[in-house]
């Protein structure tokens, strides 16, 4: 293979074209999530709390997955997820974001209706794999 061909051989982006809604009140964590996701080709929209996430989900924008921080001011991730499941009857995959490495945090996420839970700060590869896995699960 020539050098030019080698240079043109691009590594496929893991999240190419996937629409992701990030609900996270900590700007620093929001920036990190956006960086990881956009680097892998995702289209990202960020909001600061659960209420804003719900407003976007009700609107005309299409999302494939939601990354939802658990603890946010206003409406937290648990309440927002319950609303999305019970009131909006929307089964969009939701991944809980938590700063606690406790099993109880995962349990609470699942009880609220989330599909999975991930601990911050994110490992880029694990986060992308998890996103693909919950989307695949939903499509099956």
């Amino acid at each position: 293979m020539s050098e030019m061909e080698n240079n043109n051989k691009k590594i496929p982006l893991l999240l190419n074209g996937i629409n992701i809604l990030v609900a996270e009140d900590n700007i620093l964590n929001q920036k990190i999530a956006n960086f990881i996701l956009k680097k892998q080709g995702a289209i990202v929209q960020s909001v600061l709390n659960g209420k804003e996430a719900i407003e976007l989900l009700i609107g005309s924008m299409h999302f494939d997955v939601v990354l939802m921080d658990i603890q946010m001011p206003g409406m937290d991730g648990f309440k927002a997820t319950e609303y999305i499941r019970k009131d909006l009857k929307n089964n969009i995959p939701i991944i809980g974001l938590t700063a606690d490495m406790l099993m109880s945090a995962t349990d609470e996420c699942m009880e609220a209706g989330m599909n999975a839970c991930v601990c911050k700060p994110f490992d880029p590869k694990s986060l992308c794999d998890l996103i693909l896995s919950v989307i695949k699960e939903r499509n099956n």
Partner: protein
Amino acid sequence: MEAPIEIPIVDFSFIYQMSDNDSVYVFEVIELFLKNVPAGLAKLEDSVRNTDNFEIIQKQSHFLKSSANVIKVRGMFDDLVRMESLARAKTGKEEIVELLDKLLFLFNEALPVLEAEREKNKPKKLKAKS
């Protein structure tokens, strides 16, 4: 006898690794950290010194804990975890005050290191302006 290994006051490894050493990105993250954490600590200090509102202390320590896990200032994350846990249990006000003092001390000690790392990664066009 071997000299003890000194742990750096600030560990930037996560943001360097995560961004593949993208200096512009590292600069932006440190800039955000320096904009948000002092304000967050000031809010926490006000809640601890002037109120007995454990709920606000718990929420504020939780909020700061997230940032302290991205750019790791030595000891800050563990102290915030402890403070959050005490505040959640609505107990240990004296220890919370001690933890706050320690957090403020640690952050002030780390500040010059944080600022130096920010400068090191500052994009050339911004350096030219300042």
